[in-house]
C-alpha cells in the first residue's frame, strides 16, 4: 500500500469512528424531551439552573431549543416539541383552541418595561400608561426598535400599539430587527432608540447597554409564562410522559422557590415571580 492509499484508508476509518462515536453519544429517544421555549428563559440564565435539576430528578435528557414564543408554538403545532415554556398568552389561547396543547399551566411572571436612551427624546419617562408612552413616541417620531419575530415580546408590543390606536408598521421611526431580545437591546442601545423588553433580559444585559427603564408598572405590561404539554393525541411521537413530568416539575413547590430566588444574588431583585396554582386573573389580567 502506498502512502496515499494509507492516508485514504486512515481517513475512512477515522470518519467511521468519528460518526459512530457521535451517534453513540445520542441518548435514547424515549428518554429525551424537547423543550421549545422563549429566548428570555435561556438568556436570563434561568434554564441553566432548572434543567440540570430536572434531568437529575427525572432521568430525562432535555433538549432545550430557545427560540421565540411564536416559533416554539409553531414547533408544538407540528409535534416537533414535547413541551413548551412560553409567554404569549393570546397566541397560547389560540394554540390551545386548536387542540395542539394540553394542560396549560401558569408558571411565573415578571413584567415588560419600556427602555430607551437617558436623553429620552420623546419625553416618556415616568409616564404611567404604556399606551400614553407609545403615543408620545409615535408623535415625536423617535426611533423604536421592534423584535419583529413573532416572539412573545413582539406579540405584546403589537398589542400595545393596537391599544394605543397607532399603526406603527411601515413608519419611518419604527424598525424591526428580527432578532432575539438581547440582540435587539444591543441594537436599541447603539441606535439610541426605544424598545419593549422583558425585565429579566434587560437586567441581565444592563451593564453593557446604557439604556434606562423609562416606563414600568402598567398592568398591561405584565409578562406571564405558561408551560404547555403538546397534545399526544395529535402527534403520537410526542413524549407525553416527559412533558407531563416537566410541567409538574415547573409548578412544583421546590422549583417555584428556586424561581423566586433566581437573580437575587446577582441583581438584588428576583427576575421572575413564581405563580403556580394561581389564577391568571389574580395577576391583574
Amino acid at each position, binding site marked *: 500500500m502506498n502512502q*496515499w492509499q494509507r492516508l485514504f484508508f486512515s481517513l475512512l476509518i477515522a470518519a467511521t469512528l468519528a*460518526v459512530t462515536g*457521535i451517534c453513540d453519544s445520542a441518548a435514547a429517544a424515549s428518554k429525551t424531551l424537547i423543550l421549545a421555549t422563549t429566548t428570555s428563559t435561556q438568556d436570563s440564565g434561568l434554564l441553566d439552573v432548572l434543567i440540570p435539576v430536572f434531568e437529575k430528578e427525572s432521568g430525562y435528557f432535555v433538549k432545550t431549543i*430557545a427560540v421565540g414564543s411564536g416559533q416554539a408554538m409553531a414547533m408544538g403545532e407540528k*409535534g416537533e416539541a414535547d413541551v413548551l415554556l412560553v409567554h404569549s398568552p393570546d397566541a397560547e389561547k389560540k394554540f390551545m383552541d386548536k387542540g395542539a396543547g394540553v394542560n396549560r399551566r401558569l408558571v411565573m411572571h415578571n413584567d415588560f418595561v419600556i427602555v430607551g436612551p437617558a436623553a429620552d427624546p420623546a419625553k416618556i419617562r415616568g409616564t404611567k400608561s404604556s399606551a400614553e408612552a407609545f403615543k408620545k413616541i409615535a408623535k415625536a417620531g423617535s426611533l423604536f426598535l421592534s423584535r419583529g419575530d413573532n416572539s412573545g415580546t413582539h406579540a405584546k408590543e403589537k398589542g400595545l400599539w393596537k391599544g394605543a390606536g397607532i399603526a406603527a408598521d411601515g413608519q419611518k421611526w419604527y424598525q424591526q430587527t428580527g432578532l432575539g431580545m*438581547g440582540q435587539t*437591546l444591543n441594537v436599541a442601545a447603539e441606535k439610541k432608540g426605544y424598545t419593549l423588553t422583558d425585565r429579566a433580559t434587560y437586567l441581565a444585559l444592563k451593564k453593557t447597554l446604557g439604556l434606562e427603564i423609562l416606563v414600568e408598572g402598567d398592568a398591561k405590561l405584565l409578562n406571564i409564562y405558561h408551560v404547555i404539554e403538546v397534545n399526544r393525541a395529535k*402527534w403520537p411521537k410526542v413524549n407525553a410522559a416527559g412533558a407531563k413530568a416537566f410541567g409538574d416539575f415547573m409548578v412544583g413547590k421546590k422549583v417555584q422557590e428556586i424561581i423566586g430566588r433566581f437573580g437575587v444574588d446577582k441583581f438584588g431583585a428576583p427576575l421572575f415571580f413564581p405563580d403556580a396554582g394561581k389564577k391568571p386573573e389574580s395577576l391583574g389580567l
Partner: protein
Amino acid sequence: MELILEGIAKAASLLASLDREVMAITWLSLKVSGSATLISLLLGISGGTALALSDFPGKRLLVSLVNTGMALPPVVVGLFVSIFFWRNGPLGFAEILYTPAAMVIAQAIIATPIVMGITVASIQNLPPNLRLQILALGATRGQMVRLLVREARLPLLAGVMAGFGGVISEVGASIMVGGNIKGYTRVLTTATVMETGRGNFDLAIALSLILLLLCFAINYLLTRIQQRERPR
C-alpha cells in the same frame, strides 16, 4: 477597545484554567466539523475525480451545479436538513434532529461541494497529456486515477482547508439542526451567538478567539503537510 482586551484576557484565563465547559465545546466543534470534513473528502474527492475524468453530455451543467454548491448558504442547508429530519418529516424515523450527528450531516452537505469543486478544478488543471502518458506506460485505470490525485495533492489540500474552514465557521446550520443544547450540541459558533445575545461580550470574544486559534492550528498543520509534499 477595552472590551477586546477584556475578551483576550478572558480567553487566556479560560484556556489556562482549561475551563471544562469551554474545552467540551471546543472539542465538540472539532469533532463535528472534523467528521463532516472527512465525509466530504471521501465524497468530494472521489466524486470530483470521477467528474473531472469522465466525459458525458451535461457535464458542464453538473460542474456548474457543483460550483454553485460551493456557495451553498448554511442556513438553507440547515432549514432543509431540519425539515427532513423532523419527527414527522420524511427521515424522522432516524430520530437524529438536535443531535451532533445531524450537525455532521448538515456540515458534510455544506463541505462536499466545496471539496468536489476544488477537486474537479485541480484534476482538470493537470497537463492533459499526463493522462495519456500514464496510460501509455501501461498503468491500469485505477493506477492512473491514483497517480492523478497524487499529482493534484497540493490544490486538493487547499480544498481540505476550504471545506474545513467552511464548516467550522458556520453557525446557521448548526443552530438549526443542533439547537445549541448545552453540553450536547453547543459548539463554538453557536455559543458565541448565544453569549452575544446574553450581553456577555467578553465571553463571546473569548470564544471567537478560541475558534480562530483552533482554525489556525488545523490550517497550520495542513499547510505543513502541503508544503512538505511540494512536488519537485
